[in-house]
């Protein structure tokens, strides 16, 4: 076989939406790998059984490209087995071939002598069998046949048509480059013929009208770089990040980091270049969040802050060209940003002309969810939740109600209309300007937190209460009207909301159980409920148990700790956390094995026992069981989990003595009940911490 070669396929399109670049590249990568495998083109390497050919995807705004290394020039010869009619029909009594037998050989174009008889899998009698060898085909032919089909099979969520064709793709395909080694793979897709050339950066070709010719696939990235395109996403991202950092440092600040924004920029430019611009200092009077959001959402720009986190009147934007020779790019961005900030300042000023509470009335015709009513009604439910919960968390009830009353009012402000991601934040800012109590404006400002797993929970206790109450109402209300997440379906992000409730209660160490919270949440939406209360409660309990399990995982507890601790209680988070911490610590202790052993011994003997009467200590007689009973009294008086675990580990000796000395299931019914009762009480002591039978 001759030398393996490299394959390069590039679809050059009109600008592909940033969000589809990676998924489309990955999908064809997978499909190509599957195709090569099916065609026997994935050469095994000499050292191991791994395939040496692999597909590397590259994407930039106008290009989806795949590079495949080490593809053989020709497919290995292919053998296939054909099963024909049963032997009895192919051979007559004298052993000579029948008409049927001869026809079978003829059908596959081989002499009858190649037919053999054996019992194929799944058949009940021997049949005529042929092993056929097809010579392997040239890889280039296989590719020419398969590529149009594979490309057309890509899953495009928002497909479009163009011109006068029925062909659908993510954006019009304007050029196809496809080289196998130095050979063009000859195929056509919707009238576009594959060739050995492509196009570089749009603006590059205004000065160099010729296409970029490629002699070999290996030159792809360097040829494109010369034509103004950085083919690799990672490289574009890296260069952008470095340039952002450098330009911010030059201005005496640092970039207000935003990984998502950096990704976006690397997806929308063909060549990375960062432009630094300034905006009038007077705009710094706007809240920082407004500036950061406005710059990000409208201009895809980064803010720059000083060491104390104060913004500088600067921004950093990506341009889709290598330089800014006349300063037009910077000036243009500055001009637009000024217009945007002018708008933001207009909103900020307009919104403050009337107090925030004047928007409450307008919440009545803003629907939260059809069955759950308006935001006005949601506000009332949040108030009904926060009011009674506040004293239980040592918070002032009046403040909690006030924060709840105002927390959704900013949905009717101009600023939040423009930037929905500022909800809560603006309400807080406006209240601060109105002179509301600090606890209130802070709580409103942070009540949307945590926005996700990466985000912090509210920093203040009242903020935590308000945030949790809002989310609790959303979850319980939706469950009550039958909106319950299943599988990948969770359109209202209830899991995230539920996780937020658990995280806040966990991190702020609330002395209120989740069961209590569920009941409270159900009570405020009871008038809207469409389902059976008992069923809703059960669904909520199961839902929150899952959230708690995830919380334990996020907190870094080992699987054995999580399983065994959760099994004996999930609702009281403070206790759960203490148990998990004690278990994690004690799991390292040398005596842990003996504790687990004791739990197991007790568990085994009680395994098939029905529940019996309680322990009657007066019925116990043997010194060993009296000693064990004394231990029990001591264990039951031990309050904190670390001491309890330590004491439980000391139980092994007395337990051993007990089992050696007494026969638990003795003839005397009264004595047997007493002994079983003693063991049950001991088991309950273990179960105060965890179910050790789930420890692995």
């Amino acid at each position, binding site marked *: 076989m001759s030398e393996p070669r490299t394959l390069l396929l590039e679809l050059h399109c*009109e*600008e592909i*939406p*940033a*969000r589809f670049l990676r998924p489309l590249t990955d999908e064809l990568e997978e499909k190509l790998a599957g195709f090569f495998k099916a065609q026997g083109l994935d050469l095994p390497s000499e050292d191991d059984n791994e395939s040496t050919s692999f597909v590397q995807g590259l994407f930039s*705004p106008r290009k989806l490209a795949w590079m495949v290394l080490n593809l053989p020039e020709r497919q290995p010869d292919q053998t296939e087995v054909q099963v024909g009619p049963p032997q009895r029909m192919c051979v007559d009594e004298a052993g000579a071939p029948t008409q049927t037998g001869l026809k079978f050989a003829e059908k596959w174009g081989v002499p009858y002598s190649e037919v053999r008889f054996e019992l194929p899998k799944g058949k009940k009698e021997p049949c005529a069998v042929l092993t056929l060898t097809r010579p392997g085909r040239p890889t280039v032919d296989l590719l020419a046949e398969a590529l149009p089909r594979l490309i057309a099979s890509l899953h495009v969520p*928002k497909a*479009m*048509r*163009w*011109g*006068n064709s*029925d062909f659908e793709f993510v*954006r*019009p395909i*304007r050029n196809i480059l496809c080289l196998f080694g130095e050979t063009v793979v000859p195929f056509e897709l919707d009238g576009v013929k594959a060739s050995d050339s492509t196009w570089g950066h*749009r*603006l590059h070709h*205004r*000065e160099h009208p010729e296409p970029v010719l490629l002699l070999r696939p290996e030159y792809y990235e360097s040829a494109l770089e010369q034509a103004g395109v950085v083919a690799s996403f990672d490289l574009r991202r890296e260069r952008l990040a470095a340039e952002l950092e450098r330009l911010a440092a030059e201005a005496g600040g640092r970039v207000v980091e935003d990984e998502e924004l950096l990704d976006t920029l690397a997806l*929308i*430019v063909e060549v990375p270049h960062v432009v630094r611009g300034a905006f009038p200092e007077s705009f710094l009077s706007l809240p920082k969040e407004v500036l950061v959001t406005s710059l990000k959402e409208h*201009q895809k*720009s980064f803010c720059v802050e000083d060491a104390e986190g104060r913004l500088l009147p600067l921004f950093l*934007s990506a*341009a*889709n*060209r290598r330089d*800014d*020779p*006349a300063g*037009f*790019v910077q*000036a*243009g*961005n500055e*001009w*637009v*940003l*000024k*217009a945007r900030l*002018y*708008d933001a300042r*207009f909103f900020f000023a307009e919104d403050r002309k009337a107090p925030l509470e004047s928007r409450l009335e307008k919440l009545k*015709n*803003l*629907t939260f969810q059809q069955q759950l009513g308006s935001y006005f009604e949601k506000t009332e439910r949040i108030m009904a939740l926060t009011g009674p919960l506040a004293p239980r968390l040592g918070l002032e009830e009046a403040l909690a109600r006030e924060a709840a009353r105002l927390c959704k009012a900013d949905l009717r402000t101009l600023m939040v209309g423009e930037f929905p991601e500022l909800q809560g934040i603006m309400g807080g800012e406006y209240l601060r300007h109105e002179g509301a109590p600090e606890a209130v404006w802070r709580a409103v400002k942070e009540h949307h937190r945590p926005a996700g797993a990466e985000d912090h929970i509210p920093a203040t206790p009242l903020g935590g209460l308000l945030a949790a109450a809002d989310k609790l109402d959303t979850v319980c209300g939706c469950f009550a009207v039958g909106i319950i997440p299943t599988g990948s379906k969770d359109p209202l992000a209830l899991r995230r909301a539920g996780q937020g409730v658990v995280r806040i209660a966990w991190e702020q160490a609330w002395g209120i159980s989740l069961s209590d919270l569920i009941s409270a949440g159900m009570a405020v939406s009871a008038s809207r409920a469409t389902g059976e209360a008992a069923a809703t409660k059960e669904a909520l309990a199961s839902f929150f148990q899952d959230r708690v399990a995830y919380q334990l995982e996020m907190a870094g507890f080992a699987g054995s700790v999580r399983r065994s601790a959760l099994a004996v209680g999930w609702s009281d988070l403070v206790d759960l956390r203490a148990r998990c911490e004690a278990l994690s610590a004690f799991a390292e202790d040398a005596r842990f094995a003996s504790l687990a052993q004791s739990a197991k011994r007790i568990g085994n003997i009680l395994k098939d026992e029905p529940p019996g009467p309680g322990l009657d200590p007066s019925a116990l007689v043997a010194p060993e069981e009296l000693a064990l009973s004394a231990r029990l009294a001591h264990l039951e008086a031990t309050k904190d989990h670390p001491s309890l675990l330590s004491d439980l580990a000391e139980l092994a000796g007395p337990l051993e003595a007990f089992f050696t000395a007494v026969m638990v299931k003795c003839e005397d019914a009264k004595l047997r009940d007493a002994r079983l009762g003693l063991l049950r009480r001991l088991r309950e002591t273990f179960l105060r911490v965890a179910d050790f039978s789930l420890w692995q």
Partner: protein
Amino acid sequence: MHIQDLILRLQAFFAERGCLIGQPYDIETGAGTMNPLTFFGVLGEKPWNVAYVEPSRRPADGRYGENPFRVYQHLQFQVILKPSPARVQDLYIESLSALGIDFSKHDLRFEEDNWESPTLGAWGVGWQVVLDGMEISQFTYFQQAGGINLKPVSAELTYGMERICMFLTGQDNIFDLVWGDVKTDLGTTPVTYGQVRQRHEYELSAYSFEHADLDFHWHLFNAHEKEGWRLLKDLGHFYSAYEQALKMSHTFNVLDARGAVSTTERPGIIKRVRDLACGCARAYLDFETAAPAGGAV
């Protein structure tokens, strides 16, 4: 570069490249797409290239002539190319060069922005075109209009004329733009956008936000709907019925700016406009099929 120079240059550019030069419609529209030259032009199979400027009214965007960037009515330059040509992006870039934009010094991006008009039952995919960080155009491949799948597909280019003019002249205030020069025996006087438009902006903003009579507008909305369906159903007249749909759309926009439409009512109201517009589109196609040489656009 004055506002009127931009319009003249774009008209000349597209006329030279095989477009009819259309005229704005004389009924209130919110965008160039609503002009029958586009709404009906993109339907059916026959080739169709047209370009025109469309004064577009957006009552909720009114700022009493006080905001330097936002206005009640702005000028959209609209181009329809059917079927969308293979070189459509290059053609678009050339049109910007014709306005004097030198691409050896500017940054240009096409960022995903899909367009949808629920009142017209129309949607398409495309981009907002961003020049040096500013959105100057909307570029759309029409996939559906009047609820009908389009084949061939039209490319729609829309240019925000004031923005482009402000950008090219470095102006910070829309009302300071020069519309054009008036030359008389007394000499040459530059006339600003503000002189032409500012008082109009003030009055129409005040009307949309404060003075428009709600009962009157609800009455209009219902009456236009009734009239539209009568024309369409009884007579099969799609042009006159479509005018009623346009009037419904504008009336709705005024009511919306006055805050008279609740979020819950909104989708239902929009659907009433869409139903009539879609009915007109179907009637137009029926007419085209029956009389391919007929006078419809």
